[in-house]
């Protein structure tokens, strides 16, 4: 896009740089307040990142990323996401996510201890986030 897109979105995790480019709109899940929608000129905000889907608009099209906790810093012209983990839709292995979901559901039914339950619940949430992200083919917004 030669048209200037005013927000620099950077998504980094301890394992890799996931995304870095100019975009025109960003949405990310916060840990406490639901989803934030960011347009250019947003007031500076810093908030813990929740788990869910990030989307950004680039060249008029929506693209999706997963987010698994961390932090988000917003300024008028940039959004920096320090995610514990994050991936692009291309990186998601849908079969693996589906298998993980089945496994987690099975464990949830049979779990005996509190810690088994919570780790299975966390695994289930992660797999659902991935499946949701993979369900957005990207390109056309909705």
């Amino acid at each position, binding site marked *: 896009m030669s048209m200037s897109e005013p927000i620099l979105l950077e998504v*980094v995790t301890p394992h890799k740089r996931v995304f870095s480019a100019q975009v025109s709109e960003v949405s990310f899940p916060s840990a406490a307040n639901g989803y934030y929608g960011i347009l250019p000129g947003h007031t*500076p905000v810093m908030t813990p990142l929740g788990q869910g889907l990030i989307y950004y608009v680039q060249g008029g099209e929506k693209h999706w990323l997963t987010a698994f906790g961390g932090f988000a810093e917003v300024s008028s012209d940039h959004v920096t996401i320090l995610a514990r983990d994050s991936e692009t839709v291309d990186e998601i292995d849908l079969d693996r996510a589906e298998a993980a979901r089945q496994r987690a559901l099975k464990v949830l039914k049979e779990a005996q201890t509190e810690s088994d339950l919570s780790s299975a619940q966390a695994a289930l949430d992660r797999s659902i986030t991935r499946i949701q992200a993979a369900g957005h083919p990207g390109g056309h917004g909705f």
Partner: protein
Amino acid sequence: MAGLQDIRRRIRSVKNTQQVTKAMKMISAVKLRKSQERLVSLRPYADKMRAVTVSVVGRIMGHHLADELVLGPSAQAFLNPREEKRIRVVLIASDKGLCGGFNANVLKTATAFLEDRNKADVVLDVVGKRAADWARKHGFSSHAEYLGIPLTGVERVSREVCDDAAAQYTRGEIDAFYVIYNHFYSAVAQEPVVTKVFPLDLDAPVIDGKVGVAHLLEPDPNTTLEALLPRFVETEMLRSLLESSASEHGARMAAMDKASNNAGDMIARLTLTMNKIRQASITNQIIEIVSGANA
């Protein structure tokens, strides 16, 4: 002909040493690649983490907002720095030697940094046997020793050290937290550095001559800062460990490469001497035979 035998033996021994140094160089190259991969993938995150923390904390300081906020223990370490009486220092060296100036350089830096300080006012953690030996020699009783940490254990170590350091700060036992380690520039260039992890020396970001608008910290300042700052400290510590690990393997690889080359030179020199002696003895024998025939 006694010299000839000796030289042959020398050559054999140098060749054996060269085999060992070549193997060590190859092993270091593999380990370097692994450490470097981890480091390079962490760096963008660590850089951003530092930039965000500096920006957020700097603006709060720049606007003197700290007094108005109700701060938790981590935020206090950053936002209410106090006079530096007792410090905690993590000194990162290696377990093994044969890595050129790697240990000597970082330990020299540590000596210079801690020289003027009262030993009782330094809480020292050491990573690596060489650092532990140095501490003992210089009369420091180390608070914790981390020896033989594998690459997979660095996260656990950084979490442990940082949790403990934060708790110590809260109890008023330390006033600052430093890390001394070798910064990795490339396989052949490393440099020891002293980094202050907290409290940060902050310059508030200035935009158009004014400090940038302070961030809204949501859901509330305390929750956000108490989540962010420990994570920042941990990331800095993790990065230092990985920088040091990559530096160590880089330094060892360079040292072993040099050793292999030196061994090669030595073999060439010894071979030359050996051939000269051999030639001299042959010439001698010919002269003896010729002069015998003439007689």
